[in-house]
């Protein structure tokens, strides 16, 4: 009995010791988590001999904030939405990142000139550009939708719609469908009349809309035939269409582009190793590698040329990227300044709008 006790104590001790040296990286799981695992985490472990533990959360920003506030940080690197990264940085919850530690492009261009404009902040280094675009079932419409206004046109394109349960992206799309140019969207939303106008446009399809919350839901709703058209993360529709052969297509007009990237929570016990991992994961080549696992655009210009084939070995990824030139007409880069500030206000309004009948 005593022997067992000693043994288990030693084992747990060893477990803790191993944990202290391992690097813990928190992300979103699913196809996206897998792309990170294949593109950076596995090669990093192979090259450095360090162990990296990948853990998932619904939204890593929430547990990271809780950990830092409780002063018990067990995550060394976390993958968060850009606006969340900026907000947490403002609140002093993240370690600052010196851009000098980021690797230059293969042609020697400094990292800060190579990353897409604004994609590196004091605390966050972007890895991907993803977009919320319209996915639709090609068998439902004899004529494919081409404009964001078609999403709101129930006469010409009948069928249920799917939208994310939240204000972000929906308000922008509603305004663009109502004829506001992408460049004027946020200026319009700054005014109360602009917000009313966006909600009025959403009113026109409210009765025919299902609301999704997790990224995996829109392809499922399409596959079940519950909706004919839905907003979705472009990578999810790509995975269902190309990866699983579903009859889905993406309409890029009115897509909303956002950055996503890595942050280091304040107070991590493995700061140096975390920085090393972050620099390793964000080289031009690694970001390009990730694109062969999921159709999200790399956040570095120099990665574009390095993007190759999908993991099936026969689909070129270039045209499926939200950042491909032909997909960018009518695209709107999301304004994090706007959402960091207005997020709670507009979501309260959105929730009230949703609950009212």
């Amino acid at each position, binding site marked *: 009995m005593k022997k067992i006790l000693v043994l288990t104590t030693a084992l747990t001790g060893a477990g803790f010791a191993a944990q202290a040296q391992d690097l813990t990286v928190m992300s979103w799981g699913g196809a996206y988590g897998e792309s990170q695992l294949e593109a950076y985490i596995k090669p990093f472990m192979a090259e450095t001999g360090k162990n990296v533990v990948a853990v998932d959360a*619904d*939204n890593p*920003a*929430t547990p990271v*904030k*809780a950990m830092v506030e409780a002063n018990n940080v067990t995550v060394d690197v976390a993958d968060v939405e850009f606006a969340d990264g900026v*907000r*947490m*940085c*403002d*609140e*002093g919850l993240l370690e600052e990142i010196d851009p000098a530690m980021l690797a230059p492009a293969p042609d020697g261009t400094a990292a800060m000139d190579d990353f897409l404009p604004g994609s590196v902040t004091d605390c966050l280094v972007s890895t991907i550009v993803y977009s919320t675009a319209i996915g639709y079932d090609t068998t439902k419409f004899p004529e494919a939708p081409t404009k964001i206004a078609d999403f709101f046109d129930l006469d010409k394109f009948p069928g*249920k719609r799917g939208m994310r*349960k939240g204000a972000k992206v929906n308000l922008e799309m509603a305004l663009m469908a109502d004829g506001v140019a992408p460049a004027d969207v946020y200026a319009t939303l700054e005014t109360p009349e602009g917000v009313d106008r966006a909600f009025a446009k959403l009113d026109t399809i*409210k009765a025919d*809309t*299902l*609301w999704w*919350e997790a990224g995996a839901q829109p392809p499922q709703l399409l596959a*079940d*035939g*519950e909706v004919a058209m839905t907003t979705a993360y472009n990578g999810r529709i790509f995975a269902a269409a190309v990866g699983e052969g579903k009859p889905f297509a993406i309409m890029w007009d009115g897509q909303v582009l956002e950055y996503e990237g890595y942050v280091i929570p304040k107070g991590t016990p493995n700061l140096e190793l975390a920085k090393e991992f972050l620099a390793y994961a964000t080289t031009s080549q690694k970001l390009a590698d990730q694109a062969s696992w999921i159709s999200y655009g790399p956040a570095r210009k120099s990665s574009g040329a390095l993007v190759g084939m999908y993991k099936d070995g026969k689909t070129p990824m270039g045209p499926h990227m939200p950042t491909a030139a032909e997909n960018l007409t009518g695209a709107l880069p999301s304004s994090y*300044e706007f959402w*960091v*500030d*207005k*997020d*709670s*206000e*507009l*979501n*309260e*309004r959105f*929730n*009230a*709008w*949703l*609950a*009212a*009948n």
Partner: protein
Amino acid sequence: MADLSASSATGGLLTTADGRPLKAALATAQQRAKRKAFLLVLPLLLFIVLTFIIPIGQMLQRSMYHDGFSANAPALKAWFAENPQGTEPDEAAFAALASDLKLMKQEKTAGLAGTRINYSLGGTRSLFTGSARSADKLEPPYKEALLADDPKWGQPAVWQAMRGASSAYTSEFYMIAMDMQRDDQGNLERVPENERIYAYLFVKTFALSGLITVICLALAFPVAHLLATLPMKWSNLLMILVLLPFWTSLLVRTSSWIVLLQGQGVINNILVSAGVVDDQGRLEMIYNATGTVIVMTHILLPFMILPLYSVMRTIPPSYARAARSLGATSWTTFRRIYLPQTLPGIGAGSLLVFILAVGYYITPALVGGASGSLISNMIDFHMDKANWSMAAALSAMLLAGVLVLYWLYDRLVGIDNLKLG
């Protein structure tokens, strides 16, 4: 006689064999037994205190405490303390603001302070982060300098919100949870109609939970009666049918309902192929309140059946037979003899189902859509946005609502009459 003389020898007290007074010996023995009993329940007590009492206490504290602004704006806090409600912000106030902004820049806390003010007055977060960024350049007179930096600093609402947040202890989160806000003078008023949500959701949550409880009772009563009266071999089989779904994972049951109820789902397909409804008129049974009620009724049904069954099993059939033999109709027998005896089970089942329904969140999140969401989904929303004080305030109000109902139940039925099994 011998006994009597023995007791009189020790002054009238009964003693044990070794001569100690019996009363003291009994007390010692009982003490020991009590201590043992206490030690046996100690692990549970500790467990409950650690995992239940303390977290609830912390939650209640969170709902009234947020020092995001007050801890990072000491100068303004002092100014608000000195100047009562209604004082126009003067140059001294702006000087305090400027010094706090400089401090916030230094300590990188503008985001924290701004977030706190943003809870009370949406769209003000960037006011703090923006002005803190340029705080070092601020020169007196501060009022002009700050208004030049951002004219929003002149708005009374901003000062009202800062006054509200200048104390770490605040009732503001409860105020928001009741769809109230303060106007420029600091008086309470209801928020504009298109922003009211919480009161409506609380009412909807309690109404839907009540409806689910009633449906559960109506469905469970005959089933429990059957279980209690059938011969053993049939009732065992029936019991398995009740318990099997009870033991099946909640998510599995919820997602199988999605398969059954959705527009292109099994039930609609059967109805369409049977010609009951046409293909365009498929029933909408999910992603709305109907879906929430159907699925939650199914999930909570065993919580009604089991207490009812345990009570019904103990009712001797001879009572009903006696009533019939005295000339009662079957309805009278049921109403006056059987039903009153099942009341403890009805009370227990209803209370259990209702309290579980009020706090349910996974099922409404998955099948509730826009109209079937409950207050718990709003709590989850605030948790996700890391607005913990708001989530705590809503939870505390939910807790209070349940406690009030519990109290009412105790007054009307009596908690002693509760029988869970």
